[in-house]
């Protein structure tokens, strides 16, 4: 197990090295950093001074290793636009995104798995047919359309929920949360549903397909032949076997939630890292873009590592060897 994790860690380090190289290259390919930082009326001397200060004349490898060294100390430099350290900006915005992703992951996992099992077991019932056909909307409609539709119905028309922003924020140390006030929940519910819908559909369909597959196996037939109750067959035997392949996809999907949150945060003006990224793209704020890239990659790598370890926990065939 230790050698397995060590191998996975080594792979993760490689992935991060490549991603950091890509994000580093952003600095050199997306506009001239000096032009981005100084005003139009800066003198030649001022420009040279900044070039020197940023070390832009050093060999490329030296610059890259300095960049990596800084990242390792969580130093992503100054935002061109706001002139504040990028890591501070991310730290401020991160709780909003993580809470949004957390709530939508819970929604998509809970409803995805429960409805997946239901449609898998009651294959031909009317309930299953309705769930399956509505779930198609979840995959085929773009996130922003769903978001706008939800805003129209619940915020504009019914006026039950706020249309945008993050209300009811309470500070817990440096972490600003909106999950402990009613107002906070009112504002997170629409964006969380919007974000979760696509993943929910995927998980639902995957769980259903796996469930149908598992129900056809010999050990389910044998469990029936031993007179076990339907409940024991469905939940003790079928569900766990269903979840083995589902775990991988769920892991990837949580990464996907972070990535998709860019759109959702924009629609709902949710003050998270995704919105910050979109704004950074508008103003060619390269340090923020580079940091965001590294951050998302890190998230994916960590989630994948957790998924691999979960495999060990769930599947004895991997844990104990053949």
């Amino acid at each position, binding site marked *: 197990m230790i050698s397995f994790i060590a191998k996975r860690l080594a792979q993760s380090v490689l992935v991060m090295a490549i991603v950091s190289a890509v994000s580093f290259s952003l600095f050199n390919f997306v506009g001239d950093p000096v032009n981005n930082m100084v005003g139009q009326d800066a003198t030649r001397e001022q420009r040279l001074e900044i070039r020197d200060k940023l070390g832009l004349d050093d060999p490329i490898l030296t610059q890259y290793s300095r960049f990596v060294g800084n990242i390792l100390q969580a130093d992503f430099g100054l935002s061109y636009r706001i002139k504040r350290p990028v890591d501070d900006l991310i730290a401020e915005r991160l709780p909003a995104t993580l809470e949004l992703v957390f709530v939508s992951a819970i929604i998509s996992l809970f409803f995805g798995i429960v409805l997946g099992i239901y449609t898998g077991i009651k294959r031909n019932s009317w309930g299953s047919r309705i769930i399956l056909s509505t779930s198609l909307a979840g995959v085929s409609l773009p996130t922003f359309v769903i978001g706008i539709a939800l805003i129209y119905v619940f915020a504009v028309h019914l006026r039950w929920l706020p249309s945008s922003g993050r209300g009811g924020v309470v500070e817990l140390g440096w972490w600003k949360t909106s999950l402990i006030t009613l107002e906070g929940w009112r504002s997170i519910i629409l964006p969380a549903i919007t974000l979760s819908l696509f993943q929910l559909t995927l998980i639902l369909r995957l769980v259903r397909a796996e469930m149908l597959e598992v129900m056809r*196996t*010999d*050990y389910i*037939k*044998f*469990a*029936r*032949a*031993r*007179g*076990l*109750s339907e409940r*024991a067959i469905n939940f*003790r*035997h079928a569900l*766990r*076997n269903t979840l*083995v392949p589902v775990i991988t996809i769920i892991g990837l999907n949580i990464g996907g939630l972070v990535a998709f949150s860019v759109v959702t945060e924009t629609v709902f003006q949710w003050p998270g890292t995704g919105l910050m990224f979109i704004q950074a793209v508008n103003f060619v704020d390269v340090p923020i873009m580079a940091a965001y890239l590294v951050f998302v990659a890190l998230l994916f790598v960590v989630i994948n590592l957790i998924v691999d370890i979960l495999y060990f926990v*769930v*599947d*004895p*065939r991997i844990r*104990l*060897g*053949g």
Partner: protein
Amino acid sequence: MSTLLDINGLNIAFPTRRGTVNAAKDVSLTVESGEVLGLVGESGAGKSTIGNAIIDLLEAPGRITGGSIRFMGEELRDMNRDEMRQIRGKRIGMIFQDPQTSLNPLMTIGAQLVETIEKATSKRGRDADAHAVELLEQVGITEAVARLRAFPHQFSGGMRQRVVIALALAGDPDLIIADEPTTALDVSIQAQILDLIKKLCRERNLGVIIVTHDIGVIANIADRVAVMYRGEIVETGTVAQVLGAPSHVYTQSLIAAVPRADTKLDRFTSVDYIEGNTASFRRIDIQNHWLGETQQNDHTGTAIDVDRLNLSFVLQKAVFKRNRRMLKAVNNVSFSVQQGETFGLVGESGSGKSTVARLIAGLYTPDSGTINVFGKDVNENRKAVESRAARQALQMIFQDPYSSLNARLRVLDIVAEPIRFYRLTENETQTRKIVSDLLDHVGLGASAALKYPHEFSGGQRQRISIARALASRPRILICDEPTSALDVSVQATILNLLKDLQQELGLTMLFISHDLPVIRQMCDRVAIMRHGEICEVSDVDTFFEAPAHDYSRHLLDLMPSMTLLSDPVE
């Protein structure tokens, strides 16, 4: 003895889009307690369907359309789902074919046993654990207490089937339905499992239904036998009566198709009744055909010469050599095959017989040792053009007729591929002509060329494989268990075809099988393999009459005794 199960006039129908298939037609059976009833038939005969119908586990859309199933005087068809669940496991136990897949891979053996015991008996907690240990001991699993915590993948196939039997016994049933319980197992394990079932039947006074396609299993274990053909029971009687003096024409042809281990026959007797397809196709005069022209047949020595061959597989990878776990799949194997003879390689699974075949075919490269085909070392200049000629002379037929043909190609392209690859013809017209002649000759008919593999049955697919192997005009044919996936009647026709082709084309054959009677019918000489080593090489008759090695005797002892069978009709 009392009548345990009484099936009367049972009809089972599977409605499909293309009309209703009657899987069982007016089936009547009885099982007494303390007896083993064999239900024998070929694939599609409906024998498993009957087993499933008894415990109400017919797969959708199948349903019982008529008749009665009385179990200890109660009508099972009148029971609702909950009552039926009380019958399953508690009073009727079931054993399935493949022990690899009948156990839940994510639960320990103990958890699966305890769950079943708690469902079927009043035992709970510690008592249930103790009962689980007792059951495992009864089915011959040692260190049962420790084994409870093991997962299914930590057991071998035979051990898993014992666990499956323990599970079937958990509710102390009166009747056990075993659906092909030994088909997935090696002969030595098969003998143990059959003994176990027989012993349990006697000790507990159980009724047992054994559903099988294997006449050998029936001969060994059953007291009475019912023969099924296309959903009907054509004959019922004691084993001696049905196997020794079959009265129905189907039973007669079925038994004639069973390969015999006691004497060698020239051909299997005609089994047209079973095949149902008596349309015979044009056979070409193959010796004067393009296919009969063997190239540069000037080599006079041995066809295949294998000298001190070794190959190991890595079981567990590790950075340091001493931590690696290796499996010696082929250990110092030497033998030679004369031109025109059929050489058999026999052994149980894992003995390395298929690996040897693959080495000779060039699919693996040996760690050490040499393989000469017609005097040329096949592993020298593997990339060179000459070595292609060596490979063209040597073709292979694989075991599984389903996965060995590319499902996306038409039969024409499958068979023509070797011809096109080796550029054996001048133009496409000639290629197509040869393919259609070949398809005629192997008994498929030229019209098969435009179809896809899924339109054919297992036996027909194996004919396609044979046609493909012949297309490059080989002089050596390697057959790796060519008929193990087929029904006996189909096996007989395929083996006849192989024999004919060998005579017509003067082929040399390397014939790999675990099935001793098949070896006796097909081979001139035979090599016995075990754990990657050759135990004995001898004449096929010498091997069967006077085996030299202990392991050979052991294998022959395990072979189901067929003394009950009627004498072959010449």
